[in-house]
């Protein structure tokens, strides 16, 4: 009999405790973030979409080699000596024209391994994470700053320079040969 009333007391008492707790939570500010309007604060080292600052890129290909999924494609063309490509912000001399710098974000695993080897710190993680696309091809980002005609021109320049150099070398080769012939 005593237990019977104790049960009733316990049931009611615990129900009121529970109701007190839920009522308190009615006025606790919600933890919900209304996503498109408010955005969560990302952690300092959050890894999101990559960006390449092409002004600083020396085309060294180290990021492409570090990439575990091979999502970075770099193609370069040497500059001819008459051209001055300037220096990067940390004082490295640029000698290569970067004619292709594509990152395929459909492949990218956001491991940040490409960021560390970069000698000029020109490839880095941004805080952009909303870049969904309908077409997978649209996820291939091209960071090249040169226009198509410029790329073509640089390539032609380089082949011409090479050809000239080869011709010079050939001439230089044949000249001493002639000399030696005359010496005989």
């Amino acid at each position, binding site marked *: 009999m005593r237990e019977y009333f104790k*049960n*009733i007391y316990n049931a*009611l008492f615990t*129900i009121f405790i*529970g*109701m007190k*707790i*839920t*009522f308190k*939570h*009615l*006025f*606790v*500010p*919600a*933890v*919900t973030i*209304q996503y498109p309007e408010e955005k969560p604060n990302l952690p300092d080292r959050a890894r999101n979409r990559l960006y390449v600052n092409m002004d600083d890129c020396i085309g060294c290909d180290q990021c492409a080699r570090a990439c575990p999924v091979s999502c970075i494609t770099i193609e370069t063309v040497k500059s001819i000596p008459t051209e001055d490509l300037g220096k990067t912000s940390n004082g490295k001399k640029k000698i290569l024209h970067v004619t292709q710098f594509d990152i395929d974000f459909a492949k990218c695993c956001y491991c940040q391994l490409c960021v560390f080897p970069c000698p000029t710190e020109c490839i880095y993680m941004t805080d952009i994470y909303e870049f969904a696309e309908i077409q997978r091809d649209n996820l291939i980002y091209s960071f090249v700053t040169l226009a198509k005609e410029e790329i073509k021109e640089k390539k032609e320049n380089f082949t011409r320079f090479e050809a000239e150099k080869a011709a010079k070398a050939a001439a230089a080769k044949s000249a001493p040969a002639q000399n030696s012939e005359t010496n005989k």
Partner: protein
Amino acid sequence: MIYEFLYNLIGSHIVASFISAVFPLAFLVPFALFAVYLERKVSGHMQDRLGPMRVGWHGWLQTVADIIKLVQKEDITASATDKKLFNFAPVLVFAGSYAAFAAIPFTSIYIGSNIDLGILYIVAVSSFVVAGILMAGWASNNKYSLLGAMRSAAQIVSYEIPTVLVILSIIVISGTLNLMTLSEQQSSSFYNWMIFGGAVAGWKKFVLIPFVMIGFLVIYISSLAEVNRTPFDIPEAESELVSGYHTEYSGMKFAMFFLAEYANMFAVSAVVVALFLGGYQSPFGYLGNTTGLTWLIPVEQFFWFAAKGIFFVFVQMWLRWTLPRLRVDQLMVVCWKYLIPISFANLVIIALIMVL
């Protein structure tokens, strides 16, 4: 009374009663829309979420959008169902819960039907809901639906006993089954409400108070079970029975069940309010009396009635997010071992006090 007013205006009993019968529906549909919204908001905030936020300011049009979606939906009837019963069940469930509103006094000038056996009628007619639920569960030809319906029937039949016993003890105090008269007895101030011993004279009033309070708790718990709300929601137990007897329903028929559920929630709250908390009576005087505007009094009465009813609906929601669901055996233990003996002893004690 509005009915007499309509009759004098139109001159036809049929048209007047038809219009008079539509009034509770005009209250119920907006109430159901509001209650669904309130439920989602309350559950959201109790879980430190926000609830619906997108449709309209703070999502206030969410339920309207949901209803529009439900209306557009395809009305699916599975091939193995018993078509007639399947289609009739939601109508019966809604009719059962709506019929209860006929005897509930909304204000001093509006009651669907001022019958002398009002509360008995409500208890009787709300049992229709069980028939409808059983029908839905059986006709769905789905084991979970049938299980839900069976549980619901067992539950409602058991919990009707403590409800009726408590109602009986109130009838012993008030001496009437008419909810209108009962509400009138509790007039003038909250001191006269039944939960504070009613309008009984002398020492009896103070002796009655604890027993009436016990009765109030018992009827509130058992009315929760009667409308299948948490912690007694085993007929609809989402995690074990999909959603019980309305698993197979879609579109408008599902909306009917939903509307019936919320109508029922308000109906039991309204009965509790009419029995214990003075019905439509204001806890203090009326503004209409002090300013001399007599037309204001029914409006105020309706406000108080709706406010008390919605408060108890809110408490039902509050309990839903506080308590876990009871097991079937625990449910029966609560009813047969606790509520029925308590309410029975309560009835005997109240009757003794009233006889003395």
